[in-house]
Protein backbone atom coordinates (compact mmCIF):
# COMPACT_ATOMS: atom_id res chain seq x y z
CA UNK A 1 0.00 0.00 0.00
CA UNK A 2 1.64 3.20 -1.23
CA UNK A 3 -0.23 6.45 -0.58
CA UNK A 4 1.45 9.60 -1.98
CA UNK A 5 -0.19 13.02 -1.75
CA UNK A 6 1.12 16.43 -2.86
CA UNK A 7 -1.29 19.09 -1.75
CA UNK A 8 -1.73 22.72 -0.81
CA UNK A 9 -4.23 21.93 1.93
CA UNK A 10 -3.22 21.51 5.56
CA UNK A 11 -3.36 18.01 7.06
CA UNK A 12 -3.17 16.53 10.54
CA UNK A 13 -0.32 14.09 11.10
CA UNK A 14 -2.19 12.50 14.02
CA UNK A 15 -5.32 11.79 11.98
CA UNK A 16 -3.15 10.36 9.20
CA UNK A 17 -1.33 8.09 11.67
CA UNK A 18 -4.64 6.80 13.03
CA UNK A 19 -6.04 6.13 9.55
CA UNK A 20 -2.83 4.43 8.45
CA UNK A 21 -2.65 2.18 11.53
CA UNK A 22 -6.30 1.20 11.13
CA UNK A 23 -5.67 0.01 7.54
CA UNK A 24 -2.73 -2.23 8.46
CA UNK A 25 -2.89 -5.99 8.50
CA UNK A 26 -0.69 -7.49 11.21
CA UNK A 27 2.19 -5.00 11.06
CA UNK A 28 3.70 -4.59 14.51
CA UNK A 29 5.77 -1.48 13.94
CA UNK A 30 4.72 1.95 12.67
CA UNK A 31 7.15 4.87 12.32
CA UNK A 32 6.21 8.41 11.37
CA UNK A 33 8.29 11.44 10.61
CA UNK A 34 6.64 14.82 10.48
CA UNK A 35 8.29 18.05 9.50
CA UNK A 36 7.10 21.36 10.94
CA UNK A 37 7.94 24.86 9.74
CA UNK A 38 10.77 26.08 11.96
CA UNK A 39 11.82 29.69 12.32
CA UNK A 40 15.56 29.74 12.97
CA UNK A 41 15.98 33.49 12.46
CA UNK A 42 13.01 34.56 14.54
CA UNK A 43 12.10 36.79 11.56
CA UNK A 44 10.04 34.49 9.36
CA UNK A 45 6.47 35.43 8.57
CA UNK A 46 5.80 32.54 6.23
CA UNK A 47 7.41 29.77 4.23
CA UNK A 48 6.66 29.35 0.53
CA UNK A 49 7.04 25.89 -0.96
CA UNK A 50 7.34 25.61 -4.72
CA UNK A 51 7.23 22.27 -6.52
CA UNK A 52 7.25 20.74 -10.00
CA UNK A 53 3.72 19.43 -10.62
CA UNK A 54 3.78 16.02 -12.23
CA UNK A 55 7.42 15.29 -11.51
CA UNK A 56 6.88 15.66 -7.75
CA UNK A 57 4.22 12.96 -7.55
CA UNK A 58 6.24 10.66 -9.82
CA UNK A 59 9.43 11.12 -7.79
CA UNK A 60 7.72 10.55 -4.44
CA UNK A 61 5.87 7.47 -5.73
CA UNK A 62 9.11 6.00 -7.06
CA UNK A 63 10.90 6.56 -3.74
CA UNK A 64 7.96 5.13 -1.77
CA UNK A 65 7.72 2.03 -3.96
CA UNK A 66 11.45 1.45 -3.69
CA UNK A 67 11.20 1.63 0.13
CA UNK A 68 8.18 -0.69 0.14
CA UNK A 69 10.06 -3.35 -1.82
CA UNK A 70 13.37 -3.03 -0.05
CA UNK A 71 11.99 -3.28 3.51
CA UNK A 72 8.89 -5.43 2.78
CA UNK A 73 6.66 -2.71 4.16
CA UNK A 74 3.03 -3.29 4.99
CA UNK A 75 2.38 0.31 4.01
CA UNK A 76 3.91 3.69 3.17
CA UNK A 77 2.40 7.16 3.29
CA UNK A 78 4.07 10.30 1.97
CA UNK A 79 2.29 13.65 2.22
CA UNK A 80 3.96 16.93 1.24
CA UNK A 81 2.42 20.37 1.08
CA UNK A 82 3.18 23.25 -1.26
CA UNK A 83 2.18 26.91 -1.16
CA UNK A 84 2.35 29.29 1.81
CA UNK A 85 2.83 27.93 5.33
CA UNK A 86 3.16 29.58 8.73
CA UNK A 87 5.63 28.76 11.51
CA UNK A 88 4.63 25.58 13.36
CA UNK A 89 2.50 24.19 10.52
CA UNK A 90 3.02 20.67 9.18
CA UNK A 91 5.06 20.70 5.98
CA UNK A 92 5.12 16.99 5.32
CA UNK A 93 5.05 13.53 6.82
CA UNK A 94 6.05 10.01 6.02
CA UNK A 95 4.72 6.88 7.69
CA UNK A 96 6.04 3.35 7.34
CA UNK A 97 4.74 0.06 8.70
CA UNK A 98 6.58 -3.24 8.94
CA UNK A 99 6.60 -6.40 10.99
CA UNK A 100 9.73 -5.34 12.84
CA UNK A 101 10.86 -1.96 14.08
CA UNK A 102 14.25 -1.93 12.36
CA UNK A 103 12.66 -2.08 8.93
CA UNK A 104 10.11 0.61 9.70
CA UNK A 105 12.81 2.96 11.04
CA UNK A 106 15.22 2.37 8.17
CA UNK A 107 12.55 2.84 5.53
CA UNK A 108 11.39 6.12 7.09
CA UNK A 109 14.96 7.46 7.21
CA UNK A 110 15.59 6.36 3.63
CA UNK A 111 12.39 8.11 2.48
CA UNK A 112 13.40 11.31 4.24
CA UNK A 113 16.95 11.29 2.89
CA UNK A 114 15.73 10.78 -0.67
CA UNK A 115 12.82 13.17 -0.38
CA UNK A 116 15.14 15.95 0.84
CA UNK A 117 17.48 15.70 -2.15
CA UNK A 118 15.54 14.05 -4.97
CA UNK A 119 11.98 15.34 -4.79
CA UNK A 120 11.49 18.66 -6.63
CA UNK A 121 10.53 21.02 -3.82
CA UNK A 122 12.09 24.37 -3.02
CA UNK A 123 11.56 26.36 0.15
CA UNK A 124 11.67 30.11 0.48
CA UNK A 125 11.54 31.96 3.77
CA UNK A 126 9.62 35.20 3.77
CA UNK A 127 10.40 37.59 6.60
CA UNK A 128 10.72 41.14 7.82
CA UNK A 129 14.19 41.36 6.23
CA UNK A 130 13.02 40.09 2.84
CA UNK A 131 12.75 36.74 1.08
CA UNK A 132 15.44 34.08 0.90
CA UNK A 133 15.57 30.69 -0.79
CA UNK A 134 16.63 27.92 1.58
CA UNK A 135 19.99 26.54 0.42
CA UNK A 136 20.46 22.80 0.01
CA UNK A 137 22.71 21.23 2.62
CA UNK A 138 25.70 19.12 1.64
CA UNK A 139 24.74 16.90 4.58
CA UNK A 140 21.41 16.09 2.91
CA UNK A 141 23.14 15.00 -0.27
CA UNK A 142 25.75 13.05 1.71
CA UNK A 143 23.02 11.26 3.66
CA UNK A 144 22.10 9.34 0.51
CA UNK A 145 25.41 7.51 0.54
CA UNK A 146 24.41 5.17 3.32
CA UNK A 147 21.64 3.62 1.21
Amino acid at each position, binding site marked *: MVDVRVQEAAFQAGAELEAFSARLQNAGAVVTFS*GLVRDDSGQMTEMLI*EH*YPGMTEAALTKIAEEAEDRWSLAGVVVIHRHGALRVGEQIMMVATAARHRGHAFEAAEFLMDYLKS*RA*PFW*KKERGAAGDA*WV*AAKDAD*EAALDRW
Partner: protein
Amino acid sequence: MIDVLYFAWVRERIGLPKEQIETQAATVADLVTELIAREDRYAAAFADLTALRVAVDQELSDFTAPLAGVREVAFFPPMTGG
Protein backbone atom coordinates in the same frame (compact mmCIF):
# COMPACT_ATOMS: atom_id res chain seq x y z
CA MET B 1 9.79 22.67 -29.90
CA ILE B 2 10.72 21.90 -26.34
CA ASP B 3 8.96 23.07 -23.18
CA VAL B 4 11.57 24.61 -20.90
CA LEU B 5 10.63 25.08 -17.24
CA TYR B 6 12.35 27.08 -14.51
CA PHE B 7 11.89 26.78 -10.76
CA ALA B 8 12.84 28.70 -7.61
CA TRP B 9 15.54 31.36 -8.10
CA VAL B 10 16.18 30.19 -11.68
CA ARG B 11 12.57 31.09 -12.46
CA GLU B 12 13.00 34.44 -10.70
CA ARG B 13 16.19 35.35 -12.57
CA ILE B 14 14.80 34.40 -15.95
CA GLY B 15 11.49 36.02 -15.14
CA LEU B 16 9.10 33.31 -16.25
CA PRO B 17 8.16 29.79 -15.21
CA LYS B 18 7.92 28.19 -18.64
CA GLU B 19 8.53 28.86 -22.32
CA GLN B 20 8.50 26.97 -25.58
CA ILE B 21 11.81 27.00 -27.40
CA GLU B 22 12.59 26.12 -31.00
CA THR B 23 16.03 24.56 -30.91
CA GLN B 24 18.36 22.23 -32.76
CA ALA B 25 20.51 21.73 -29.66
CA ALA B 26 21.78 18.17 -29.39
CA THR B 27 22.18 18.14 -25.61
CA VAL B 28 21.02 20.00 -22.53
CA ALA B 29 24.41 21.74 -22.39
CA ASP B 30 23.96 22.95 -25.98
CA LEU B 31 20.53 24.32 -25.09
CA VAL B 32 22.04 26.18 -22.14
CA THR B 33 24.68 27.70 -24.45
CA GLU B 34 21.93 28.90 -26.81
CA LEU B 35 19.96 30.42 -23.94
CA ILE B 36 23.00 32.19 -22.43
CA ALA B 37 23.67 33.80 -25.85
CA ARG B 38 20.14 35.18 -25.97
CA GLU B 39 19.91 37.65 -23.09
CA ASP B 40 21.65 38.67 -19.90
CA ARG B 41 18.93 37.22 -17.67
CA TYR B 42 19.73 33.73 -19.00
CA ALA B 43 23.45 34.35 -18.55
CA ALA B 44 22.71 35.35 -14.95
CA ALA B 45 20.62 32.25 -14.30
CA PHE B 46 23.11 29.85 -15.87
CA ALA B 47 26.29 31.54 -14.59
CA ASP B 48 27.22 28.59 -12.34
CA LEU B 49 26.03 25.25 -13.66
CA THR B 50 27.33 23.43 -10.60
CA ALA B 51 24.59 25.24 -8.64
CA LEU B 52 21.90 23.89 -10.97
CA ARG B 53 20.05 20.63 -11.48
CA VAL B 54 18.24 19.51 -14.60
CA ALA B 55 15.28 17.23 -15.28
CA VAL B 56 14.56 15.80 -18.71
CA ASP B 57 10.96 14.73 -19.25
CA GLN B 58 10.45 14.94 -15.48
CA GLU B 59 13.35 12.65 -14.58
CA LEU B 60 16.49 13.95 -12.87
CA SER B 61 19.24 14.01 -15.48
CA ASP B 62 22.37 15.99 -16.29
CA PHE B 63 23.77 18.50 -18.76
CA THR B 64 25.16 15.83 -21.08
CA ALA B 65 21.71 14.35 -21.74
CA PRO B 66 20.67 14.26 -25.44
CA LEU B 67 17.55 16.19 -26.46
CA ALA B 68 16.36 13.99 -29.34
CA GLY B 69 12.68 13.18 -28.76
CA VAL B 70 12.57 15.16 -25.51
CA ARG B 71 9.43 17.21 -24.80
CA GLU B 72 10.30 18.93 -21.53
CA VAL B 73 13.48 20.19 -19.86
CA ALA B 74 13.51 21.84 -16.43
CA PHE B 75 16.24 23.83 -14.67
CA PHE B 76 16.31 24.46 -10.93
CA PRO B 77 18.58 24.71 -7.89
CA PRO B 78 19.23 21.69 -5.64
CA MET B 79 15.99 20.60 -4.00
CA THR B 80 15.14 21.47 -0.42
CA GLY B 81 11.97 19.60 0.40
CA GLY B 82 11.00 17.87 3.59
